[in-house]
């Protein structure tokens, strides 16, 4: 029974991590990453490592998405300006 939980959690982590790699757009990737963080926390709990799970929840649920989305916002704004500035550039972030 306890093994079943571990196997289920491991499978979910494997699927979530693969999805996080497969998605290309950083905004969508950050959404997958948030889900991956939660599933990882469940895996750590199931493996009786609640301290690690708590760290994962604290960092992964709000802090990482905030940092990622703020970075994307800044990069997009700069990219838009660079596009406006030059017609022949093509080096968006």
């Amino acid at each position, binding site marked *: *029974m*306890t093994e*079943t*939980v571990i196997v*289920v*959690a491991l499978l*979910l982590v494997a*699927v*979530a991590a693969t*999805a996080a790699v*497969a*998605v290309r757009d950083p*905004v*969508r990737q*950050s*959404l*997958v990453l*948030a*889900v991956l963080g*939660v*599933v990882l*926390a*469940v895996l750590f*709990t*199931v493996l*009786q490592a*609640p301290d690690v*799970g*708590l760290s994962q*929840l*604290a960092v992964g*649920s*709000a802090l990482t*998405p*905030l940092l990622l*989305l*703020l970075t994307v*916002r800044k990069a997009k704004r700069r990219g838009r300006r660079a596009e406006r500035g030059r017609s022949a550039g093509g080096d968006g972030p």
Partner: protein
Amino acid sequence: MNGWILAAVLVLVTGVGATLWGVAGGPLRRRATAQNLCTALACPVLLLLAQGYGRPAYVDLALVLAVLGPVGTLVFARLLADELADDPPHARGPTWTAAALGAAVVGAVAVATGPGRALVKLLVIGVLLVGGNLIASRALAGGMQEGRGD
């Protein structure tokens, strides 16, 4: 070997598995909704696991997730407001189902815990979980900005 862990596995496979499928593809609104539902469903899973392993200290994980999960969704609702405004997500059914599940799990664990300080903590988690996720899903649906919501 007990019903609590079995229930946790069930919620994990059907609920969290479904949100994983939802977040992995499709338009932005579907992914954002799935992210919100994922935290709303993982919190009851953590509560069930804490009860199943007989370790009340594990409840702290559910507490942190109940506090920070909706905050994470608000981050997405705030910083993706422009993208979501064109195509706002509406997932009334799944949201209320997840809220009802959360309330039911908190109730069941509360009955098993009995009165005491642990019960107060559980009720706080329940209120934060259900209230937070309802607010967060409303914010995703366009209720973040004044005048744009319903």
